[in-house]
């Protein structure tokens, strides 16, 4: 198996470079992350993030042959060689395939990803009807890997002002939650020209989401709700 991997150590290198790697093993049903671990055993300076190795933690998001995805759930057999690996686009590189996600989390914070409910907490829990609970399907599953936001040109150009698909999916997840009382406030906070409205619906986010979620649809719902409240 042949690889071409982005290498950059800001403390030593003048500029990033692509380094070729070779692995003499059968791909079989190996995932890309398995291959990366084998490469790291040979060259311990190769740096990437990983944790759960089964698509739940969202640590190993990277650009694989030009498409963002999670290395741990990408079968080697699905990849054309040489496999070109780069860090997630649009974020500052800390080293090799590791990016600085601060900007991404700042936008996540802007979504206020927690229930706002001023009524006294009931003895057990705040109940929802099955119908209301169903509205959260396709939203709560997000693992914040960042594949979607870093594939979005609107986020590349305005990462400080446009929240990006991941944060907007979360924003909608709390807007639509029947237990949340700050719906109007949340919608009012998003009416500027950037936070939501920089989304032009090109759907890169939908194409790359490793969990098969649809941020574009959530964004469209936010716009529709805003319209309903303002008209």
């Amino acid at each position: 198996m042949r690889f071409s991997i982005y290498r950059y150590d800001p403390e030593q290198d003048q500029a990033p470079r692509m380094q070729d790697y070779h692995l003499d093993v059968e791909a079989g049903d190996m995932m890309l992350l398995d291959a990366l671990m084998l490469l790291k055993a040979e060259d311990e300076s190769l740096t990437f993030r990983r944790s759960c190795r089964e698509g739940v933690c969202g640590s190993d998001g990277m650009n694989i042959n030009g498409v963002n995805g999670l290395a741990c759930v990408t079968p080697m057999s699905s990849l054309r060689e040489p496999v070109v690996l780069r860090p997630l686009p649009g974020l500052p590189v800390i080293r090799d395939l590791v990016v600085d996600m601060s900007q991404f989390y700042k936008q996540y914070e802007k979504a206020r990803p927690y229930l706002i409910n001023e009524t006294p907490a009931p003895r057990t829990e705040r109940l929802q009807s099955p119908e209301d609970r169903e509205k959260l399907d396709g939203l709560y599953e997000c693992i914040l890997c960042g594949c979607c936001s870093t594939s979005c040109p609107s986020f590349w150009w305005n990462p400080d002002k446009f929240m990006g698909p991941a944060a907007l999916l979360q924003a909608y997840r709390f807007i639509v939650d029947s237990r949340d009382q700050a719906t109007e406030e949340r919608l009012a906070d998003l009416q500027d020209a950037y936070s939501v409205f920089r989304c032009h619906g090109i759907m890169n986010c939908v194409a790359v989401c490793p969990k098969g979620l649809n941020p574009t649809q959530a964004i469209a719902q936010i716009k529709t709700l805003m319209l309903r409240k303002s008209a």
Partner: protein
Amino acid sequence: MVDNVAGLARTGLRDWLVQRVSAVILALYTLFLLGFLLLNPDLQFADWQGLFAQGWFRMFTLLSVLSLAGHAWVGVWGVSTDYIHPYWLRLLFQVVVILALVVFVAWAVEILWGN
């Protein structure tokens, strides 16, 4: 919330609505014109003039020109904020576009109702 002091940006919701509504008007106008051309294969200048002599069609045309201006402004504002980074160049570009759009609209009014 991102505040826009310049005021050129207005609210995102309004821009978005302008773009959607203007797109519908432009689509209707385009379909109408296409239909008119298809239904009148031997179109003469007199027919064309006859169409534009009708008040409702002049209004429809003016509405479409205004839609085109609004639609273009929202789009061009977006593109310019993405790609033109020095603020003075961006502002200059935006002012030129606004002036051009105002001239185009005034020009259209002159063509429609002038002599």
